[in-house]
């Protein structure tokens, strides 16, 4: 299928191939966690606490004696679920808002632009922290906070795309056939605006993983015993001189995943030749 061509092209480049391999691995961890993890993530074994990495525990154990490798595998599930759901909600909402604002213009557009510009001027982490302070900590709150924190970006990007596309002759030509706004937006404008927004969403997923980890680190995200990479690092800070692996391995997992997402996104941008369209927002 033609739609998969850019992905194929992206995978063929060296950095695309490497990053794609890492991403497949991380996604596999998330999906097949119960099969891949040698232990349950919440079984405590206090006498075996802070065991060094070895044959029994490849990445060692944490301060409660839980197998770190198993927790990292399950942690992938938490991170990816939160990041992907949050960004999906955000992209969907951003596409709708941006399309309406860009297409109809007028007071609605001015209102949306004002709010978007306001949130755009704060870092995502600050917005997320404020939101969590209001709605309270937890996995669902993290998801909502992240999706709202990124909403401005997708709304802006979609709006810019729609504003450019709506002056294309084919939009006027379709209106001239008697097509309504709904037809024009959903059959012409959004399909043509979609690609850069999806790619931006993919890149934002990497940032969202970091944001989720940060919130987890502060204890505002997933609540124990649910494994979250950020929360794991946070508990590792106390043991940093006794059992450095507790903080190192989750840290590596985050870094590797985020770098892979960014590299793959970059390869995809290259393959699709849309760098300018992303910048235009």
């Amino acid at each position, binding site marked *: 299928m033609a739609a998969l061509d850019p992905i194929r092209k992206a995978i063929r480049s060296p950095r695309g191939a490497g990053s794609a391999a890492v991403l497949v691995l991380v996604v596999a961890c998330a999906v097949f966690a119960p099969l891949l993890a040698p232990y349950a993530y919440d079984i405590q074994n206090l006498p075996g606490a802070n065991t060094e990495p070895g044959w029994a525990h490849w990445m060692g154990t944490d301060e409660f004696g839980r197998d770190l490798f198993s927790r990292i595998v399950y942690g992938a599930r938490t991170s990816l679920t939160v990041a992907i759901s949050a960004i999906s909600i955000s992209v969907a909402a951003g596409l709708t808002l941006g399309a309406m604002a860009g297409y109809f213009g007028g007071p609605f557009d001015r209102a949306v632009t004002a709010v978007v510009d306001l949130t755009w001027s704060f870092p995502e982490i600050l917005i997320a922290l404020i939101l969590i302070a209001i709605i309270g900590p937890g996995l669902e709150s993290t998801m909502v906070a992240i999706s709202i924190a990124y909403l401005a970006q997708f709304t802006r990007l979609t709006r810019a795309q729609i504003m450019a596309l709506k002056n294309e002759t084919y939009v006027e*030509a379709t209106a*001239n056939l*008697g097509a309504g706004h709904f037809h024009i937006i959903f059959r012409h404008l959004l399909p043509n605006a979609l690609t850069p927004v999806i790619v931006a969403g993919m890149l934002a997923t990497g940032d969202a993983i970091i944001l989720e980890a940060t919130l987890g680190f502060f204890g505002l995200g997933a609540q124990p015993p649910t494994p979250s990479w950020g929360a794991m690092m946070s508990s590792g800070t106390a043991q940093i001189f006794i059992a450095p692996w507790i903080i190192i391995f989750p840290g590596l997992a985050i870094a590797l995943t985020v770098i892979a997402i960014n590299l793959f996104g970059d390869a995809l941008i290259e393959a699709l030749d849309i760098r300018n369209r992303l910048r235009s927002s």
Partner: protein
Amino acid sequence: MESAAAMREGDLVRITGLTREFSSGGGLMTPRRTMRAVNEVSLDVPRGKVTGVVGESGCGKSTLARLVLRLLDATAGTVTFDGIDLASLSPGQMRKLRRRMQMVFQDPYSAIDPRYTIRRALLEPFQVQGVVQTAAEARATVDELISMVGLSPRMLSSFPHQLSGGQKQRVGIARALALRPSFLVLDEPTASLDVSIQAQIIDLLESLKEELGLTYLFISHDLSLVRYFCDRVVVMYLGRAMEILPGAKAQPRHHYAHALLDSNFEPDPTQRKVITMLAGEIPSPFAMIPGCAFAARCPAASDLCRRERPALEDLGGGHMIACHHPKN
């Protein structure tokens, strides 16, 4: 042989006092300014004929095209199509009427959604209008449409970027004809094409008109093309109709129409000419001129021209002119 349309008499489209204003600015820093892109234009489009509108950039010809199809709403004045006042129609009724009036656009390169195959683009008019077709009917329809404009049905599965400019414009024409309209507005359909292709497209439009009994409103900046293709010619300048020529042979008498004709180089080195330089350039459309719009550049302008706007008057035989001092 008489074509079907030529036998029916009367005007298909009547335009009366049509005016459209656009505003810009009006923000915190900029004062609000209003321009009249089309300024009290009255014009009839006879059935089965080609009515040409010619003028330079900013003369309002493209705005006029959009007003006639109600792609834009008029600030004042009326457009009637086959006796129906367009402004009186509800959106639903307007949508229905669009089957009978269509447009061919200037830029064939962006007139088709790049993600649509030619087949899908040709079927979209039916989809939009809620015309249900079986798969076999749809196939027959697109085959017929594409052959009508001289393209091979093999092209139906192509995307627009795989076609040349001329081929794309043929698809644009096929799409405009899909719903069997009786009236086509042609908005500079050949302006972005090479001359050898331009002539092909004009030839195609001529034969389609005969075959299907169409009525055309042809918008162009090219006076020689308009004089070749059109039965009547309207010369516009700064939103106003300056002169209406009843036929290709009629000699223009308005000074602007003359300047336009004078600026047209014949493809014949034995007919070289010395251009009479017009003073200045086309004024800003925001300048609200009380008198004749052309007065500032006209060699024959008098105080009267600067003070009082000349009305469009009939010189006889359908030749109309808005000038206080027409050329002899």
